[in-house]
């Protein structure tokens, strides 16, 4: 069925959809709707896969990735490995509107965000720390390392490279709540 306007998003994140629609209905642009819709998911920590307090890395830190794209002007703003800033999609929009670049990453992206007025906050929660603690207790499983020693399928690091490349990425059981 072809009807405009339209909001469509991955996964059953209803509040994000409703927020985007509400933004459009109140006169916002398509870009505003995307930003507000995704930001709502960041606030609600949708599925544990969006926003603060989820998916801790090997060091137990939560980092965020986000991107926004204007299909009229082909402008893009993106952030990767963003630390200590909750509103990742907002920072992505700031990259698009406040710089001539497209993609900022890591600590420098966080400094940019702070300079643009985004609050600096700890992204860890008791939940993310529990996930991290359980992972450590489970000998750091699952694990994304390969061709290193000690054997990353059995042991935590620190790791050093093998002289030979032997292992290839193997199929892992999926968790539909763990996704990019």
């Amino acid at each position, binding site marked *: 069925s072809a009807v405009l306007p339209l909001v469509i998003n991955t996964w059953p994140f209803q509040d994000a959809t409703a927020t985007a629609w509400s933004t459009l209905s109140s006169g916002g642009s398509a870009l505003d709707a995307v930003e507000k819709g995704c930001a709502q998911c960041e606030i609600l920590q949708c599925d544990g896969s969006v926003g603060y307090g989820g998916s801790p890395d090997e060091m137990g830190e939560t980092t965020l*990735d986000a*991107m926004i794209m204007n299909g009229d002007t082909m402008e893009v703003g993106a952030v990767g490995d963003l630390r200590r800033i909750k509103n990742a999609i907002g920072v992505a929009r700031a990259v698009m509107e406040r710089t001539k670049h497209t993609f900022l990453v890591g600590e420098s992206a966080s400094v940019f965000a702070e300079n643009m007025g985004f609050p600096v906050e700890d992204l860890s929660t008791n939940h993310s720390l529990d996930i991290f603690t359980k992972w450590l207790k489970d000998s750091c499983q699952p694990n994304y390392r390969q061709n290193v020693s000690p054997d990353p399928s059995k042991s935590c690091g620190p790791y050093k490279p093998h002289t030979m490349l032997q292992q290839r990425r193997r199929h892992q059981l999926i968790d539909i709540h763990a996704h990019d």
Partner: protein
Amino acid sequence: TIGMIVINQAGQVAAGTSTNGASHKIPGRVGDSPIAGAGAYADSTAGGAAATGDGDIMMRFLPSYLAVEQMRAGVDPPTACRTAITRIKKHFPHFFGAIVCANTTGSYGAACNKLPGFSQFPFMVFNQKSNVPVKEMVDCV
């Protein structure tokens, strides 16, 4: 991860993504979500797409860009989505991934790669016909 496409009354398309990525990732790892053409893509002359799943695999195939280019060529959104999934499946039959697609007239669709424990992909749609957010499901291929 959320990936979202919004098309306003005038047919202007915007897309976005936000995620905290993969659990237990190596510090510094970035997935497909913030990469234009991979996590999402928008072009007001064709449509928009947003992908989700295993970003380490999906980012190599620019599935959102591929789907939008398919729609530019006149392919309907469900078929464009399936083409993007099938392209990845040829190389990685067991990859975890899904995609939503919409063209500038407001037609939309979705596709996903069928795996044990993942046979349907849920996504949300809101348009004037529904007037509320509606959860839809697509069978994976």
